């Protein structure tokens, strides 16, 4: 695979950023509607709106026009398929038109458009735009992370006792994850200074990049939920590992993201210990 110049990455970044910003009005129109038409997808906890589809179409069209070599891994295009396509070395845009759809439907301002670019299986561009909170997070590899054009950095919390940690307790409603989710919620919750469950992976990762959350853990999601957020965290000085301590895998994105390595490791260990919990009586 040919070396990608910094200038070329910047070109991808600029075009993507412009397109994402142009999706703002569609996002806002849907967000402000009190009675949105909502469709249930695969399961009762999985919703989508017409705005998800409109935004993904607009992004895909615009990116394909500017970069005909592009491949796409997008949430709505792949809805209903059982398996993800294989990630190749080709320039691939990973798109979640609205991450945090249930928040979007309820006008909770923790949702956003998430776009990432991967080439040679490397994350090179990441953008998360939350028009409901006027927050535009952006990054391109090697140049740090930004919120509305201002540089952002992760926090320096190195221990759980001083950390506010995000996780998704809501996954307790997914039968195969229930037990694991509950045990981890207990383990993390009993040690952390605080926990938050915001139901948007993209925004939660952006919050880690900004230092607003000290760490975030989630399993079971899809590449488009986390791709941009992972790059943001790393470019903001943080770390992202696979939940089991190995290297993060974008196509099977179980993760622990944190501002510092010691905090990430402590969380990984707590999660491992949580698997040992046999009896839930905590008296």
């Amino acid at each position: 695979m040919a070396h990608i110049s910094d200038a070329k990455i910047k070109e991808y970044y600029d075009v993507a950023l412009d397109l994402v910003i142009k999706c703002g009005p569609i996002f806002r129109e849907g967000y402000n509607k009190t009675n949105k038409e909502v469709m249930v997808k695969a399961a009762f906890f999985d919703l989508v709106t017409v705005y998800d589809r409109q935004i993904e179409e607009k992004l895909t069209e615009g990116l394909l026009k500017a970069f005909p070599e592009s491949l796409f891994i997008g949430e709505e295009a792949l809805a209903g398929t059982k398996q993800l396509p294989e990630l190749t070395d080709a320039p691939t845009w990973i798109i979640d038109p609205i991450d945090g759809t249930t928040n979007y439907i309820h006008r909770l301002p923790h949702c956003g458009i998430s776009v990432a670019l991967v080439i040679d299986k490397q994350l090179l561009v990441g953008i998360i735009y939350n028009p409901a909170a006027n927050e535009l997070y952006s990054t391109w590899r090697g140049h740090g992370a930004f919120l509305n054009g201002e540089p952002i950095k992760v926090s320096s919390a190195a221990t759980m006792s001083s950390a506010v940690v995000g996780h998704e307790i809501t996954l307790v409603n997914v039968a195969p994850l229930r037990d694991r989710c509950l045990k981890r919620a207990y383990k993390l919750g009993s040690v952390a200074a605080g926990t938050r469950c915001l139901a948007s992976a993209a925004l939660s990762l952006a919050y880690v990049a900004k230092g607003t959350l000290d760490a975030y853990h989630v399993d079971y999601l899809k590449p488009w939920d986390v791709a941009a957020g992972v790059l943001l965290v790393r470019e903001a000085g943080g770390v992202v590992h696979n939940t089991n301590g190995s290297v993060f895998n974008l196509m099977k994105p179980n993760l622990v993201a944190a501002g510092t390595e010691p905090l990430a490791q402590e969380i990984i260990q707590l999660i491992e210990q949580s698997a040992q919990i046999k009896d839930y009586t905590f008296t």
Partner: protein
Amino acid sequence: MSTEIEELYNFIYPLAIRAGEILLEGYERKEKNVDIKGAFYDVVTDYDNKIEQYLMGEILAKYPQHKFIGEEETAKNNNVSKELTDVPTWIIDPIDGTSNFIKQIPHVSVSIGLSINKQIVLGIMNNPAQGKLYTAKLGQGAFCNGKPIHVSNCERLRDANVAYEVSLLHVHKVANKHIKRIYHVGLHARRMLAYSCVVDELCMVAAGNLDAFYIEDMYPWDCAAGSLLVREAGGVVTHPFGGPFDIMKPDLICAGTEELRKEIENLLRKADQEHSVGSGEV
């Protein structure tokens, strides 16, 4: 009485705005974002005191006979008490969501409630991080930034966004109670969420952003104003086991509909009947 409430509302309204400005100033300070413990708890205490003293000072200057509900240990004058009487009594939380205040998670609020004859008659809650000012007067509806708000009409937990204070797992003596309840409620909810700001969570139920919220072991000032807002927005607020809501021991379930509230109550009861959570069948 309604002209009295009107007068008090018009009096407190600009104070609530000003208190929100002070809160926002503290919220936006960058140097806080270092460590949640230690040095910058001082910053929290500073702003907490500033806002409390501002509000109490202004209120007592005009209404020296009014009372406040607060902790006796921090009582600075004879107007503060632990008991609710018939006298006009302000129930104020200068900063709810102190960790969020420190971390810049946009769920923070100044909460101002007023009780007359032991009944909450007005409530103003200001979340300046989101630019939302929630207001209610008894019998006159609920508002956000002057626009009417209404609870959702969600009747089933399966369709519901529910908030639960998951951070309470940190408190060892109630961890078992909460893990069981989280399990049973979370099992059936479309989304379970946690924000660590009770005042803002009550506002979110009133505005229909959340469909239901349950909390226990809070102080009167966390729930007084918010409980009025939810009711004025058309929602229900009761004790977790269905009895009347008590301002002074404000354990509650609140929801947009009684059906949803009842469904949650039943699950809390079911959870409490178990000794522990297993990984058994639903």
